């Protein structure tokens, strides 16, 4: 005990501060990076930090999802998208915002909303050592059980949503040869494998 708190609490606070700091740093890096590819990597840092936050909350499955889907898959998707759309990902892009007033208004509105949310929520006090709910002694099994029983409809709807998003994205991304004006006028943009 140190100042009336168990020592492990200090380790947790330290871990939280570093992970939260990493998340903020990644977010900040994403918006101030002056080239597209490094901005993607800063986003990766941010997403990794969020995975760390889930880990601190003992959300094992969410942590794995965050890394597997966001840090692993979505980042690769974004990198590929950037390389598909940008003729020169190393080019320094403008970091200044042309819509300063609108941006400040939107950000201010969002910040107010989040702050109001944080300060008006009634938090359930959670004792240290509280363990997650389980089914057959396992948190992930509980999620699997709930997906097949209580949340069956959302579970099935998710597959339809995934199908729709996949087909939609494929239709949008599919380019007939010669239909892409960007590639036609750029002789240096070849890179056909």
């Amino acid at each position, binding site marked *: 005990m140190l100042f009336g708190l168990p020592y492990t609490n200090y380790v947790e606070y330290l871990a939280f501060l570093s992970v939260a700091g990493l998340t903020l740093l990644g977010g900040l890096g994403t918006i101030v990076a002056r080239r597209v590819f490094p901005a993607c990597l800063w986003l990766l840092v941010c997403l990794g930090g969020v995975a760390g936050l889930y880990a601190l909350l003992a959300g094992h499955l969410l942590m794995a999802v965050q890394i*597997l889907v966001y840090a692993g898959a979505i980042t690769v998707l974004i990198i590929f998208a950037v390389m598909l759309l940008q003729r020169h*990902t190393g080019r320094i892009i403008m970091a200044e915002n042309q819509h300063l007033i609108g941006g400040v208004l939107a950000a201010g509105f969002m910040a107010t909303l989040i702050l109001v949310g944080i300060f008006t929520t009634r938090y359930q006090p959670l004792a240290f050592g509280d363990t997650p709910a389980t089914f057959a002694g396992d948190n992930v099994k509980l999620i699997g059980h709930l997906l097949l029983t209580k949340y069956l409809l959302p579970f099935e709807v998710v597959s339809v949503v995934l199908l729709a998003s996949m087909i939609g994205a494929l239709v949008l991304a599919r380019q007939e040869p010669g239909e892409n004006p960007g590639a036609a006028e750029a002789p240096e943009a070849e890179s056909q494998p």
Partner: protein
Amino acid sequence: MSIHTIGVIIKDWLIGLLAGWGVPVELSRLLIEVLTWAVGAALCIIAIMLAALVFIYLERKVSGYIQSRLGPTRCGPVGILQSFVDVIKLLLKEDIVPAEADRVLHTIGPILFLAVSALAYVVVPWDEGGTVAGKVDAGVGVLFMAAVGSMGLIGIVVGGWGSNNKWSLLGAIRGAAQMVSYEIPMLLALMCVVLQAETLSLAGIVEDQKGSIIAWNFLRPWMWLPVVLFLISGVAEINRTPFDIPEAESELVSGFHTEYTGMKFALFFLAEYGNLLLVALIFSVLFLGGWLSPFGYPDPLRLPGIIWLLAKSLLIVLIVMWVRWTLPRLRVDQLMGLAWKLMIPAGFVALGVMCAVIMLGWA
């Protein structure tokens, strides 16, 4: 005596020692906890370094014998010191960075690749109760392994992009496409094992195979398709021939590490051999009973489980090397076709077979 028991004995001894110095028990427990993490993490790093040292020599010898030559013979008896000489050579090599490269990303690439590759080692069950991060494994072991495993490609892409070389970037992007494509069949194969063992924990998957060799997953006929899928996608995930598209010496010079020399190049290789050991370890855990002895549980020979695990892994490593020096590299379109048109449908078939077996009550 298992690793776990030895750990408990050492912990108790340390707590007694610290209590003798007047340290509160609660604080010493925390300190020992942190020390355990550090020891576990250090063991993972040591495992990777040893893997690299042993496998580089082994790879050269194996390739030598497969191609009817001797392999290294000069450094030490039968060339056994070859790996150490390689390390010294790589340490003394000049570090060349292209003038137009992004110096920061060029440096971060190999470090990121190595650091991320090491992470999956925390969930490997070396022995009964001998997992470095046992609670992470108990929570989502298999998924954690797959998740951090999928992050390795970021290191490759960072290195390839940071080099500002067309070969490097092409290799890196092809590698990324390959690694994401083969991740799906790997996840499907893992899912079949999870269905069988009813747990995501790698330690739990070993527990499920408890018994002699006939209880292991690879002897269950409905596991044969997942075995093949996991082996192929595992080899593809670690970018070894016939799936070494990111390197592809004959078409892309040497792919994502064209512009790498000396220690940065060595770090990429360290991580690649670490990944090779990891895939072999995971394969042994999933299908070959992990640390279990083939003669039954408890082991009649009384050998530590880690010996059995390493022996099985070495067998897998040799098979992977045999494949590497036998088969030619696939073309990019063949590679993608194999993943999307053969392995992913096969993965769903394997899943269906597994479900049927469970519904029939055979599993």
